[in-house]
């Protein structure tokens, strides 16, 4: 992150903030989309995170720590958005149904399995998985971003990956039977 840009935004330069926001909005939205599994709510969470970023930037003491700081703000915004409760939305999901090879068909099935299993995880577990396995944060960084103890982060990651593993394994058996039949 451009340190000078962060410092200018921190000192109240809205033009600098606009450049800063444009440089991070895709990332914020992407993470929110993965955790919330809802495009509209992810949009709201990303916007809220950016507004909080502007509002609270003066409290950021070290511009070099902006990335970790905005990550923490984003996760709070995601949590808040999630806890606002489910909203009535019309969601249309269009699934690509063009598996041309057994590998492609398996991959599609894999994605659908993971999609369903991931959606069944709590918001806390999904957050750990996204930070650790998508963003590649260390377990310590993951814990810091979520404001939880490292042990809790480890425990949540273990629970989540085990749940996903069990889902994948459970599906592997009937699909094997289908292949052998």
């Amino acid at each position, binding site marked *: 992150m451009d340190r000078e840009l962060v410092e200018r935004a921190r000192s109240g330069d809205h033009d600098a*903030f606009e450049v800063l926001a444009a440089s991070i909005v895709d990332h914020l939205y992407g993470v929110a989309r993965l955790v919330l599994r809802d495009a509209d709510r992810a949009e709201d969470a*990303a916007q809220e995170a950016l*507004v909080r970023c502007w509002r609270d930037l*003066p409290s950021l003491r070290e511009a070099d720590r902006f990335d*970790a700081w905005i990550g923490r703000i984003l996760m709070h915004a995601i949590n808040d958005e999630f806890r606002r409760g489910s909203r009535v939305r019309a969601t249309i999901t269009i699934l690509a149904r063009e598996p041309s090879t057994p590998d492609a068909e398996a991959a599609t099935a*894999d994605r659908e399995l*993971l999609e369903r299993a991931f959606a069944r995880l709590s918001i806390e577990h999904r957050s750990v998985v*996204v930070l650790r396995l998508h963003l590649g944060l260390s377990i310590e960084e993951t814990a*810091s971003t979520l404001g939880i103890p490292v042990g809790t982060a480890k425990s949540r990651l273990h629970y989540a*990956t085990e749940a996903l593993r069990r889902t994948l394994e459970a599906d592997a058996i009937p699909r094997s039977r289908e292949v052998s039949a």
Partner: protein
Amino acid sequence: MNAGPDVERRISTWLADEVPARAPDRILPATFDRTRHTRQRRFGAAWRTITMNRPWQLAATAVVSVAIIGLGAAWLGGSGGTGGPSTTPSPAPTAAPSRTPLPTPTPQASLPPYPSSGAVEPGTYALHQPGVPTVTLTVPAGWGGGGAGGPVKNDGTTRTVGLSTWIVGNIYANPCKWGDGLLKPPVGPSVDDLASALARQPLRNGTTPTAVTLRGYSGKYLELTTPVGLDFATCSKVPGAPENSPSYFVTWVGPALVDDYMGFAGPGSRDRVWILDLDGVRFVLVATEFRDATAQDLAELQSIIDSVRIEPTPPSSSASPSAGP
């Protein structure tokens, strides 16, 4: 299906496939529509640099207090002029306030806006804050923009001095434990309501509000200080901020009860507060002096105060204080 040790890799791959490459275009315009009308939370944080021992803190506070009382009285003595020397604060009004014509007001439209950051060239500016009536003022050399309020000098040090304008929605029940919530029931809508509530606010040592007239507008004046001995580290942090973020001492919140916080304070700092009725809009002007501000700093602050002209244009929204939670 192999769901062994590579399960994390498979999840990672799936997440990488799932994440959208771009955010919808509408997020940024919607965000900026909000942030352009949102004042940054800017809290004076000089207490973190306090190194003096207690006797020196008390001595410094006493010295600053004497200077402030003198300067405050000088300004209070004026009722529309430029604030000539006086030792007599405005008496309580006994009749309907009379409007003193503004001394050749400068049209704000012709003035440059006061910068929100960086060093500011000496000159006359229009100070705009979202939802707050505009004031015009003249700053000497050495002052800068303090995003949250207005002119500020020595920002982030124990010598900080600054001037800020506000519309207050409600005050915190406890400015140190502000995370515990706002005053309940909330402050009423009148000038007197706010002045009385601030005078009673814990930890601020508010003086008895006195009647004042400033630039032709009547209202109340009081002084607030922050305790020298308070351990600010025990105060609330910004919700959602990292664990190692600083704690703050926050006095009030803006009319929307979010996004606009008066938390500019350090041990022994003093706020001179003018609460004015601008044709139905409760407007607040605050001159803040941290305890190590020099006589020169305070004289410069006073010169800015003396230059203030108020443009009584009601805020476009939230013109009157909210009676929210």
